[in-house]
């Protein structure tokens, strides 16, 4: 271990001691989802109170979003008590209570964690299936640390993988390790990450870039922003490793403007990493130097496509580029470039620390590791969960998600974003795995799973998805630009019960021209929501085509020419 890293560890241990020793620490989970239900107000209220034996800190979400605002009390004994749906009244109570005693306050506590048995009437966290079914690698610090606080991150073993790589491994070793781990890209295309890195690594160009894609425009997915706003140092460490492995000098983290919580967290993390000598010149005293910066984009879904993203970082409008040249040959500012998704990069520190064999021991043969899924919609436990690849959709829905949130049964799922697909019940036995999901007609994509009960009409759902694709088409190629508009018009006819018998054939024809005539995935995959729906809900769609269904309500969507655009 290097002197420099040892010093950081000592600093971190002392810092943690000050925070926790003989203290009760109250952690408020104030991520985006928490703030949406008032967790920030709970935090302000607690921070305004004074007690000698209590410290109050902000942490990101542990993923159990349906229980937010969520507060965790860490007692001086290290026992932890978890509180759900905390309101102002309970906040007052929690503070009053723990400023005088270490006895457990039971009200609204849904779990505890301890090496001992504390209380028969409350389950241990690990006894809850929504927790025990998870295997948290990239999200291991979720709910534990203050986002961006580097000493808290180091105290969990953070940056030890970087220290190991810099002083015990060559860049080639790092690439090999990642290759060996079987890690595949989590941004949609599932390309093997180590192989991608090996395209860039041997290139001798003096300036090379590694980019991290956090555009995350898929509605229903929030795990990329989730990592940024909950444990941004995992990403920073992973990106430095990516830079070291590929001999690159600079990286950009690419994220859409307006998402202030994740943006602030990653910028804090980057600036603290510079302060501690983990970014910049001669990292930890090694020969390796590396820079990192956040690049904000305007609102454009297609900017998340890898070459479009480079246009956006260069400050231009962002229709995708033609390939070849591929990014590893000519990418950002025509320099050799690598690009990966946030989740992909966030696995890397643990792979380097524990080895590729360890990573491969989780998951399926061709999809190693875990999937980070975002459950939303008509499910009992909306939230973000990291589950081993190979778990069935059924298990995710029932055991992790707790099944339907009403007495209406689950009818279908929308997975992989608006270019992904729609799955019916027949597909619920499918394993969460890149290839099995693709075979079922949908994709795992970035991990969003929107759960619909039987009150949702499939035509209404795909009309929403196609409206999105239409709105977001960048307009460069007409099969995509016009095709999406045309498909939306047809779906609108179906929704209005004004369809004609040729509409199914028409949709198929438009879908096929989009597939062969579009430059990027946006157009190529744009028919997916409809083709996958036809696989599971053909008769329902045919009923709509035959106008046997009540007209649907009008859907409010924006138009591409917005009212305040240039006159």
């Amino acid at each position, binding site marked *: 271990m290097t002197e420099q890293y040892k010093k950081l560890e000592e600093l971190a241990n002392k810092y943690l001691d000050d925070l926790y020793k003989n203290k009760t620490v109250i952690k408020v989970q104030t991520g985006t989802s928490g703030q949406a239900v008032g967790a920030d107000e709970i935090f302000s209220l607690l921070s305004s109170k004074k007690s000698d034996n209590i410290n109050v800190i902000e942490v990101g979400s542990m993923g159990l979003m349906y229980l937010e605002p969520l507060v965790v009390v860490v007692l001086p004994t290290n026992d932890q008590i978890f509180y759900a749906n905390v309101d102002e009244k309970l906040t007052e109570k929690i503070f009053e209570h723990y400023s005088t005693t270490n006895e457990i306050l039971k009200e609204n506590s849904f779990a505890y964690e301890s090496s001992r048995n504390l209380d028969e009437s409350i389950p241990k966290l690990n006894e809850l299936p929504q927790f025990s079914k998870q295997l948290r690698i990239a999200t291991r610090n979720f709910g534990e640390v203050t986002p961006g606080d580097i000493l808290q991150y180091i105290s969990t073993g953070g940056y030890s993988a970087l220290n190991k790589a810099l002083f015990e491994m060559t860049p080639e070793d790092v690439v090999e390790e990642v290759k060996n781990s079987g890690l595949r890209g989590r941004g949609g295309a599932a390309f093997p990450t180590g192989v991608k890195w090996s395209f860039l690594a041997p290139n001798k160009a003096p300036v090379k870039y590694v980019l991290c894609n956090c555009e995350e425009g898929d509605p229903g997915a929030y795990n990329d922003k989730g990592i940024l706003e909950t444990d941004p140092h995992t990403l920073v460490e992973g990106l430095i490793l990516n830079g070291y492995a590929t001999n690159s000098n600079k990286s950009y983290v690419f994220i859409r403007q307006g998402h202030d919580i994740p943006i602030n967290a990653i910028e804090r993390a980057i600036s603290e990493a510079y302060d501690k000598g983990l970014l910049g010149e001669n990292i930890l005293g090694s020969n390796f130097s590396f820079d990192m910066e956040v690049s904000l984009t*305007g609102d454009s879904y297609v900017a998340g496509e890898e070459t479009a993203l480079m246009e956006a970082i260069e400050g231009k409008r962002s229709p995708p580029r033609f390939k070849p040249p591929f990014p590893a040959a000519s990418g950002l500012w025509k320099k050799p470039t690598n690009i990966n998704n946030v989740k992909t990069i966030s696995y890397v520190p643990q792979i380097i620390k524990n080895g590729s064999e360890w990573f491969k021991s989780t998951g399926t043969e061709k999809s190693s590791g875990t999937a980070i899924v975002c459950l939303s919609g008509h499910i009992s436990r909306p939230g973000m969960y990291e589950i081993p690849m190979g778990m069935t959709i059924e298990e995710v829905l029932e055991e992790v998600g707790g099944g339907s949130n009403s007495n209406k049964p689950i009818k279908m799922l929308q997975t992989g974003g608006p270019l992904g697909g729609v799955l019916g019940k027949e597909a619920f036995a499918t394993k969460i795995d890149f290839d099995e999901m693709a075979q079922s007609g949908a994709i795992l994509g970035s991990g969003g799973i929107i759960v619909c009960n039987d009150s949702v009409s499939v035509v209404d759902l795909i009309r929403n998805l196609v409206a999105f694709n239409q709105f977001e088409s960048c307009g460069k190629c007409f099969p995509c630009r016009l095709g999406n508009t045309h498909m939306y018009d047809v779906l609108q006819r179906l929704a209005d019960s004004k369809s004609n018998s040729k509409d199914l054939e028409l949709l198929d024809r438009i879908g096929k021209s989009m597939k062969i005539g579009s430059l990027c995935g946006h157009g190529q995959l744009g028919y997916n929501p409809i083709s996958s729906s036809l696989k599971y809900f053909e008769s329902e769609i045919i009923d709509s085509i035959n106008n046997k269904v009540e007209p649907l309500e009008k859907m409010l969507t924006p138009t591409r020419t917005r009212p305040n655009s240039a006159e």
Partner: protein
Amino acid sequence: MSEKHNSEKLRNIIKDSISNQKRKTVTVLSSLLAVQDSLHYIPDEAIEEISKHCKVTINDVWSVASFYTNFRFTPPGDKTLDVCWGPSCHINGAQKLINQAHDELDIKGEGESEDKKVTLRYSTCLGACAQSPVFAIDHKMFGKLDETKVTKIINTLKN
């Protein structure tokens, strides 16, 4: 931001935002974002200043500004209400709540209320889908909405 800036004052704010950007890499897009951050819209003067600063044509700047859907070219209302029509919110009843917001604010589609206090915008996803349906006021999220909560939020906007 509804008061009219006189042109010179406006130009100074613009120049200031363009030359004091927080991040190192300065581009046409980053400059547009910086201006919109301080003024909440992109006036013609900004297009000119950015074209000078980045040494590109006025057309180049317009092409970027018109591409990304977050840019606007007239001053917005004092507060901006984002309503999410993404699929998670949609299946949890967002459309009804959006209709309600339209009625209570007397705004049709996207745009400003007559007193210029509020701008209503559609969002494709606010990223808090686990708490759907979701609205946001100036980026502060409000989740698990129902009719009562929407009325409450809109009342805070009106005052």
